[in-house]
């Protein structure tokens, strides 16, 4: 064992070495992400099947979504992924200040995304696009258009929930990082959080074209 006393790590009794622990938690997170992929996968399947049944309604539906806001949001989320990636490599370099700053930036971008999304929801509500009693639709197939908006709200909503959780976790990690909790050798939490954040981004990358871009060309 090395004699370095630079930093202390809490090692679970089931592990022999920090590397083993780090590797285990990384793989753990990846396995968890795979379950997330299957979770959203089921939803995407339901969406695809329904869309195949009512192509027209779904085209009309996505024409009513906010193209600009949606695209802007995608950009925001992509940027947040970039900052998160940079944060992780910063943590590997053991550079504390950049790490904290980048994490804060990531959180800010995430919050911005949620803000824009909220604003978008508000607009939809004003346009009476929320399925239910006061759903107003003066184009063909109101019922099936309603189905589209159902998926729209449920999918984006579920994604938003994940993002909110993500922001919470990042906040915690930021706090620990600020308190000198991590260093070049021990930064597993940062890495693992990063993975989660990227997956949430990944989901949106597929939601965006399916919900916003379908049937844009008249």
């Amino acid at each position, binding site marked *: 064992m090395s004699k370095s006393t630079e930093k202390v790590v809490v090692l679970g009794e089931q592990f022999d070495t920090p590397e083993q622990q780090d590797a285990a938690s990384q793989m753990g997170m990846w396995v968890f992400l795979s379950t997330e992929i299957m979770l959203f996968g089921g939803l995407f399947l339901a969406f695809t099947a329904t869309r195949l*049944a*009512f*192509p*027209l*309604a779904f085209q009309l539906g996505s024409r009513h979504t906010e193209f600009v806001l949606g695209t802007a949001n995608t950009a925001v989320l992509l940027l947040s992924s970039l900052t998160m990636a940079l944060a992780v490599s910063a943590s590997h370099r053991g550079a504390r200040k950049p790490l904290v700053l980048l994490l804060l930036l990531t959180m800010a971008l995430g919050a911005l995304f949620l803000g824009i999304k909220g604003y978008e929801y508000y607009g939809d509500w004003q346009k009476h696009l929320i399925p239910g009693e006061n759903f107003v639709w003066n184009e*063909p*197939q109101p*019922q*099936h258009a309603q189905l589209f908006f159902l998926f729209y709200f449920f999918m984006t909503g579920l994604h938003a929930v994940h993002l909110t959780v993500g922001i919470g976790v990042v906040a915690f990690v930021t706090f620990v990082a600020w308190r000198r909790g991590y260093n070049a050798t021990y930064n597993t939490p940062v890495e693992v959080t990063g993975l989660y954040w990227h997956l949430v981004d990944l989901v949106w990358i597929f939601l965006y074209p399916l919900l916003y871009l379908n049937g844009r060309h008249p």
Partner: protein
Amino acid sequence: MKSGWKAVVSLGTASLALFAAAQVRAQESGFRWQPEQASKIAPRVDLLFDFLLVVSGLIAGGICLLIVIFVFKYRRGNPADRSNPPTKNWKLESAWIAIPILLSLFTFVWSARLFYDEYAEPAGSININVVGQQWFWEMQHPEGPREMDELHIPVGKPIKLTLSSQDVIHDFYVPAFRVKQDALPGRLTTIWFTATQPGRYHLFCAQYCGTQHSNMGGWVYVMEPGDFEHWLTHTKPQPSLAEAGEKLFVQFSCAGCHGSHAAVRAPSLDGIYGKTVPLADGSMVRVDDRYLYDSIVLPGAQVVAGYQNIMPTYKNSLTQAQLMELVAYLRSLGGQTAHEKSLDTGDATTRQSIREQQQRALETQQEDQEMQPRQTPSDAMPSGDKNLRPLPQERKSLP
């Protein structure tokens, strides 16, 4: 050692004796190993079943026998040759991988072909509409007569059932015919069969559909053609499927758009059945029952090329039975080949004669109690224990 073999032997003898006893008992009590075979397909299914039975019997029996033998021969303290026990044997293993694969493929091919025959109905079958509803079956003959939880059919004629459901998923099951098919809400499904034995057979609902699932069902009466004619002519006369559909077509102002000189631009429905129609998205589609049904239930799903999608959906304003009557009507609007026409009605001539006889029957309203089909669900309740569900649109989603 010895005792081991004795045990095996006495076990074998015991089971044999038991089996023999059971056989005799069975013969005496007319006990069956399979439902009676009352349809053309039934013997073919049973052949496949028995084939599987023999193969699995050999496999399972072989394995069990080996286990028993090994256990007694090599049981602890029993002197036997245990020198260099094998733990790998490629030849053997590839054999017991290959053989099952071959067996499986053989069975699969056999099954697949039989399955196809079970669903691809032959020319000239009689098309009877069947609607499942919690918890009874409503049948409607092309000539008009409706029945409740009973189905009268002629022997030897291919019968095609077009199934649908008013509420939840049901399943039309006649063990003696070896046929079974789910009846789905908002979709049409079909099965066909040819009864071979006159008689009375169980009709079940096989798909769990709520509280009285096990009450849902009745009897299928297979009759000699003559008796069947007699039965048809002595039922209360009803407008035929097509006629009923025609009424609806006017009543629900389909004609208002699809009529020859209608204000709205809508495609004429005369003779489209069996034709191929160009759709707005550039694809072509052949007009079959499924397409007609969908065009009425979800008009937007497939829009005909060159038309606006202005047709309202009739999903909730028409009952399944009515929707199926409309389909029957549009089908009868011709355009199809002779054999497809006869799908509705058996061959046209008998249908004509039956109609005439029914006209005559109208004058002399002689009612045959036993043959009288029940009219509406409400007076159809045999023991009042079947309560109707509301139609979909009145249905509230439960908290």
